[in-house]
């Protein structure tokens, strides 16, 4: 075991190597490690945030669906109510129309009846006049006996 200048050579080499390592090896490696650590942390945070947002969205979707269902039910109910109303209205209208038609028909019948009665009266009067003419064997002056005839017609 003899100590000699090898020691100095080794010391200088050691210092140079440490300097090189400190300058060119350690910093880039640590930077890469640090950056990856940060990336992973960011990724995990983003995943957490995403999960949270997804939960919120699911909750909101459920709310929206619930609301939509309620609205749909309301709309259906309203439509049903409206339909019933329309049917009722139609029924009432139809009834009114029927009554109106019936009244009109009655009026017409009445008119027709009156007209027929009038016609009958007139014919009976003419028949009566003709009968009377035949009985009297002479002409009845219509003008002279108009008053009498009218009275007769009115009596029929």
């Amino acid at each position, binding site marked *: 075991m003899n100590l000699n200048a090898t020691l100095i050579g*080794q010391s200088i080499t050691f210092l140079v190597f440490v300097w090189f390592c*400190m300058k060119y090896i350690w910093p880039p490696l640590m930077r890469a490690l640090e950056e990856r650590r940060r990336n992973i942390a960011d990724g995990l945070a983003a995943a957490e945030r995403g999960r949270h947002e997804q939960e919120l969205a699911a909750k909101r979707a459920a709310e929206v669906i619930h609301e939509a269902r309620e609205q749909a039910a309301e709309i259906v109910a309203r439509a049903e109510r409206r339909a019933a109303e329309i049917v009722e209205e139609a029924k009432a209208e139809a009834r009114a129309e029927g009554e109106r038609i019936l009244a009109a028909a009655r009026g017409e019948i009445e008119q027709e009846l009156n007209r027929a009665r009038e016609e009958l009266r007139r014919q009976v009067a003419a028949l009566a006049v003709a009968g009377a003419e035949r009985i009297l064997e002479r002409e009845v002056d219509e003008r002279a006996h108009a008053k009498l005839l009218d009275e007769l017609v009115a009596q029929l």
Partner: protein
Amino acid sequence: MATGELTAGEYIKHHLTNLTFGRFPDGTWGWARDAADAQAMGFWAFHVDSLAWSVGLGLVFLWLFRRVARRATAGVPGGAQNFIEWIVEFIDANVRGSFSARNDLVAPLSLTIFVWIFLMNLMDLVPVDWIPQLAHALGVPYMKIVPSTDPNITFGMAFVVFGLMLYYSIKIKGLGGFVGELAFQPFGRLGAPINLVLEGVALISKPVSLALRLFGNMYAGETIFILIALMYSAGWVLGVFGGFLQLGWAIFHVLIITLQAFIFMVLTIVYLDMAHQEHH
């Protein structure tokens, strides 16, 4: 065994001798021919094999990590990036666990120490004869391929750590604070001389123990590998037995080399943490 004409003792000695380039006592520079030459060179000698393997493995570490660091993405990492990040996060967790102050130097320092020492120790698992034999064939007489079995290497690193400890102690606490810490603990102002001796020993023992622990473990492990390798020349029964021994020791050594790299790193972190802390 290296060559037929070597004795066991020579074989071991050969394996534990560094390839040395240095200044001979007469002032000329040149390659040491044997251990005695290297011894005679004194301080001004370089273990060329230790340095070359150490620097080469350090460059492998830097190249590998730099290649990944340059393309590091925050996206899905590839296989290489995943592996490097795994190591880096392991180091980072250790630094965060043991080092309480803020210092951008400590984590890269720890990474360099851990991976570099691990790679140097890993050379211990290469069968002891392969590369020395290859070097011998190429005309290189000595080749020690495990730099961490060379105390120069471990002390070189430990002294840098020691220097950083002193630097940060003085920077954080001031020269007065640092000397005060050495002089006025644990027995107060009146026991300053005793304190200085105690704390001085404690301080000096840190880098020494750091270096010697790594060196001792690796040297012992390497020596056992060499001893096991000796068995290959002692007949096929011992050879097969040696093969199993080498396998077992290598598997156990996987733990040792990782553990030693880890201990060196953790102690460095702890020492630097102590340097950053002010005692009152």
